[in-house]
């Protein structure tokens, strides 16, 4: 199993570890609810080194065009494409960021398949010949997210960093260490991904922690991130992605370049798109704020099942449980009241269900 290059440091901070697709992940530190609130109210630092990552020279972009569903050739210098990769059947395999970083394209993946399987897929597309370099062992990736994340980034790199648009990449030096900084994130608060050389990874983590002290930064794990993604309505490949698998009912068409060059699995996706949707995911919550909602729960109308819950969590912001359910298409609308388990009423809701506070912060006025 691949482990984080800063595993010892994370363990010293109290990390409880788990495993996903053959890679060890930090599940939690002080507890998911507390960590969730830290991100919504202040900031959280998470080790994202579980992501697989690689670098491809600009003239070897063919391999990434075959691999990813988005328009890789059209990524402008300094920008990042959020897309995905699917298997031959057009079913989800990875949630993908591809960054155009000067003469290289850098790809970061959250994958349902392990490193070995991902490498085999890329090798089948001629990765070695195109100069693809695996960065999973030579770098670490940290995610800094939260209402105050921008202030920590500013204190580390200067005010220029505030001008970074969402989904962009820039190179910075921090204590003589070269860092690739991506403005991104999947929490609906401010977010930055730090790609750092593995030898200085622990020192950079501690440097971010120190800069974050006055801004309420705490270490956070993947459990809090799953909660943040769900009530921020960011796609989570490890939750609804793993359970539904087909990107079309998940509403991920925006990640796909239907009109561009062929990519792996495109024919299967196009065939299903032509056939038309039969299901779609919609946000759900119990009418009673104290009501339960669990993965696998069935939702019915007049006693007939019309949906099944595929992701669920408690939302500290909404103070109730919230989820996503895969609905039969005629019922896939928000604003309905349906039947849950044990006579509980379930409401379908519009997502994202609240306005994140970060959206009200104007960085250009700082």
């Amino acid at each position: 199993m691949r482990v984080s290059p800063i595993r010892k440091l994370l363990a010293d901070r109290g990390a409880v570890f788990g495993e996903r697709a053959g890679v060890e992940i930090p599940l939690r530190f002080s507890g998911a609810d507390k960590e969730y609130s830290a991100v919504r109210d202040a900031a959280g630092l998470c080790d994202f080194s579980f992501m697989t990552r690689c670098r491809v020279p600009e003239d070897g972009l063919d391999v990434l065009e075959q691999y990813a569903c988005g328009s890789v050739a059209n990524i402008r210098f300094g920008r990042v494409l959020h897309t995905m990769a699917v298997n031959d059947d057009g079913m989800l395999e990875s949630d993908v960021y591809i960054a155009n970083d000067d003469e290289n394209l850098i790809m970061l993946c959250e994958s349902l398949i392990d490193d070995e399987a991902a490498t085999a897929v890329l090798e089948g597309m001629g990765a070695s010949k195109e100069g693809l370099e695996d960065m999973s062992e030579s770098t670490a990736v940290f995610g800094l997210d939260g209402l105050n994340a921008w202030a920590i980034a500013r204190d580390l790199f200067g005010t220029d960093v505030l001008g970074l648009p969402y989904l962009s990449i820039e190179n910075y030096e921090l204590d003589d260490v070269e860092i690739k900084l991506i403005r991104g994130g999947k929490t609906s608060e401010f977010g930055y991904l730090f790609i750092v050389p593995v030898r200085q990874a622990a020192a950079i983590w501690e440097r971010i922690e120190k800069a974050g002290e006055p801004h309420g930064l705490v270490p956070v794990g993947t459990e809090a991130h799953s909660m943040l993604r769900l009530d921020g309505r960011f796609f989570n490949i490890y939750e609804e992605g793993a359970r539904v698998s087909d990107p079309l009912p998940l509403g991920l068409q925006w990640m796909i370049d239907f009109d561009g060059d062929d990519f792996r699995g495109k024919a299967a996706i196009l065939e299903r798109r032509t056939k038309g949707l039969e299901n779609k995911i919609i946000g759900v919550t119990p009418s009673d704020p104290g009501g339960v909602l669990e993965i696998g729960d069935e939702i019915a109308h007049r006693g007939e099942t019309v949906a099944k819950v595929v992701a669920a969590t408690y939302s500290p912001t909404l103070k109730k449980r919230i989820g996503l359910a895969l609905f039969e298409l005629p019922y896939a609308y928000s604003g309905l009241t349906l039947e849950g388990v044990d006579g509980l009423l379930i409401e379908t809701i519009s997502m994202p269900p609240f306005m994140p506070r970060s959206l009200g912060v104007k960085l250009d006025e700082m």
Partner: protein
Amino acid sequence: MDLELEKTIEARAAVLRTIKEDLITRLNLAYEPDDLHEDISLLGSGLGLDSLDALEVILGIEHSFGVKIADDNIGILRSINTIADYVMAEKGKNEEVQS
């Protein structure tokens, strides 16, 4: 499906269809209406609209539905569904006033 639920769905589907068609036309999106999930994020992730796009969307909503959107009410642009919520609530208020 009972009649009341069917009516609720029909009313919402009509609003959603108009919003989607307006988005595709005004922003020249290379998608069909069925490709746009109603919860797709309009700002930042998802469609990634910039401030000019957002203004275009607001103009479209105001024109199509005869509702006004205040400058500080950018929160309704979180997704197509949140726009539909706003439009349906505003239409509901207008109908109350007229009756």
